[in-house]
């Protein structure tokens, strides 16, 4: 199995069949991470550049581990240690990286569309590891994998996404991805955090989190960033927690078998109460484990076969 595309830039450009192939491959490859010797030779001789313009713990580590378990050679660049601090443009950086003939470039960038710009300039496969508020397709895929693992399906489920939808690339990828796979997505949060026209992506919107929680099979909670207070999106963390946070009290209105997800990093006590994040329905750490499998699957599918 391979994917007949060069890049993974956004959920919108993956077909249902392609998503199924990726999920299936990830489910197969997941087992490698449980072996005593966690390495297969599949991508021996392939070079992968991890190009992180923005800070990241989970995604970056996850990609690096995925590449190493498939025996690829990896190099890491971060904004602070690269020529970006000398004022090199993304276009020039891309051309220089390309000259070293890598097989894939994994990019995390603060600007929406930066991976698209990169992909136009290089022969290597570009994998978007998060671009601004735009997309985070590997997160979307690992979320789907986690839901499918726990619920046995995606179609027909109700997925509630709570929090700052407007500034979230995870929300965008999940709205597009889950809707595409036949789930119903409900967004909940203060109106200031619901982006204009988001219904066009296929989601429903409510300003009352209880309503979103009530029939949800999955509740995804997004991180609330303190800086958003300065843009008048919400008055205080205290008020946010009280009116929109996923508290133990609100959980009482949820389905018995609901799954709680969070892309991390968590702001304990703001968008999610600590006891909920660590509660029995939380699959937050399973998400992280599946992240490695999804990224192994993508690397394998993009680089493993003849191009």
């Amino acid at each position, binding site marked *: 199995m391979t994917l007949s595309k060069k890049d993974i830039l956004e959920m919108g450009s993956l077909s249902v069949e392609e998503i199924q192939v990726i999920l299936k491959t990830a489910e197969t490859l997941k087992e490698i991470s449980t072996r005593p010797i966690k390495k297969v030779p599949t991508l021996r001789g392939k070079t992968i550049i991890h190009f992180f313009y923005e800070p990241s713990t989970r995604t970056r580590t996850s990609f690096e581990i995925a590449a190493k378990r498939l025996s690829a050679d990896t190099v890491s660049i971060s904004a602070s240690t690269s020529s970006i601090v000398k004022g090199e443009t993304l276009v020039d950086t891309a051309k220089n990286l390309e000259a070293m003939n890598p097989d894939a470039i994994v990019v995390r960038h603060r600007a*929406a*569309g930066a991976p698209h710009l990169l992909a136009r300039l290089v022969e290597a496969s570009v994998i978007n590891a998060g*671009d601004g508020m735009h997309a985070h397709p590997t997160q979307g895929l690992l979320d789907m994998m986690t839901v499918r693992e726990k619920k046995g399906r995606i179609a027909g489920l109700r997925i509630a996404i709570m929090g700052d939808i*407007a500034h979230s690339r995870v929300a965008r990828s999940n709205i597009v991805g889950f809707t595409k796979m036949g789930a119903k997505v409900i967004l909940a949060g203060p109106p200031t955090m619901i982006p*204009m026209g988001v219904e*066009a*992506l296929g989601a429903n919107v409510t300003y009352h989190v209880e309503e979103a929680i009530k029939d949800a099979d999955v509740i995804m909670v997004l991180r609330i960033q303190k800086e958003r207070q300065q843009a008048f999106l919400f008055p205080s963390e205290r008020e946010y927690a009280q009116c929109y946070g996923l508290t133990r009290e609100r959980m009482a209105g949820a389905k018995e078998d609901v799954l709680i997800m969070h892309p991390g990093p968590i702001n304990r006590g703001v968008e999610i109460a600590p006891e909920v994040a660590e509660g029995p329905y939380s699959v937050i750490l399973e998400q992280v484990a599946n992240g490695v499998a999804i990224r192994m699957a993508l690397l394998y599918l993009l680089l493993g076969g003849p191009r």
Partner: protein
Amino acid sequence: MRQTLIKGGHVIDPETSVDGVTDILVEDGKIASIGKPKAKRTKTKAEVIDASGRIVTPGLIDMHVHLREPGHEYKETVETGCLAAAHGGFTAICCMPNTDPVNDNQSVTDYILKKARIADTVRVYPVGAISRGLRGESLSDFGELKAAGVVALSDDGNPVMNAQLMRRALEYAKGFNLLVIAHCEDRNLTANGVMNEGVTATQLGLLGVPNAGETVMVARDIALCELVKAPLHIAHVSTDGSVRLIREAKARGLPVTAETAPHYFSLTEEAVLNYDTNAKVHPPLRTAKDREAIRLGLADGTIDVIASDHAPHTSIEKDLEFDQAANGIIGLETSLPLCLQLVEMGVMDLTGLVAKMSMNPARILNIAHIGLKPGNPADLTIIDPEKKFTIDANTFRSKSRNTPFNGCELKGKAVLTMVAGNVVFREA
């Protein structure tokens, strides 16, 4: 005596209400007569320009252009901007003051006018800054600027956020009979937005600029115009709401005029899909609803003028991440063909279009010679309405290439531009 006879063209001049096939005789740079000239008047050695099958109009005026000189000569100079204008069919352009240094004093105005004299192509009418350094803190010396030759005042590129300063600018400018051109934007609302707020921005994950970011400022400036009874010209109108407010203000008899740019009646926010920085402009490309409102506003006279907001940028400013790229689209060499599309679509007739591209800007700017009248300088444009061509940015005379229209197939363009009797552009 030097004579040129423009023969057999379809002359359209809303100023003199001429609309028919006729001849124009030009003598020593001035219009001598309209209509078949008396045999004894034309010398046998008069140069004859065959304009049959062509449209002849008074010289087109683009009242909103960024020439970038002084300061950013790598993007455009007075010389290259004037050449681009001539190639686009324009005989006169107004250049905005956001140069480096800013055109907020006589020296900079003098410099621009000197460069224009050297370029010796089209007429250049500089626009001076409303506020010193475009900082929105204090008024520029309007009297000095007027004496140096500016035709209007604007902080274009920046809004005048301080309402009191804007009020005083409108009021003080009245004393010099100077027009104030408003760049209507509330910076608190537009904040860090990089494209129109709405479905496309949500999809692309880009910060949005709401319609209201423009509309609230249009409302404020109309209120100030009413307060001080001074003429107000609103630049680059892009929203449905702005059109509505201007229509209402005109109905109440306020001295408000307005312009829009070809990209606002041609494109929508969807041009930004795929993160095309050549479609990044301020105000941003809006929705189909706004585009329709702009077309209606042009049709019913709410919008008086089409000006290109020619804003040259090079790959240094455009070949970047979308949110880092500069705002701006060049327009001098695409404006007329895009405007002719409006005639094709039935939004307006040719006379209406010529009014918006020549007579109205001339009137709004208080230019002394308007229309093809005997005695006026022979500024005119000859258009081939049937000429089919493909826009190729690489052939532009402008130094910059930032256009979202590259590759578009259009019909109709300028084939000859004449300024004071001199042919400054002729299609090969």
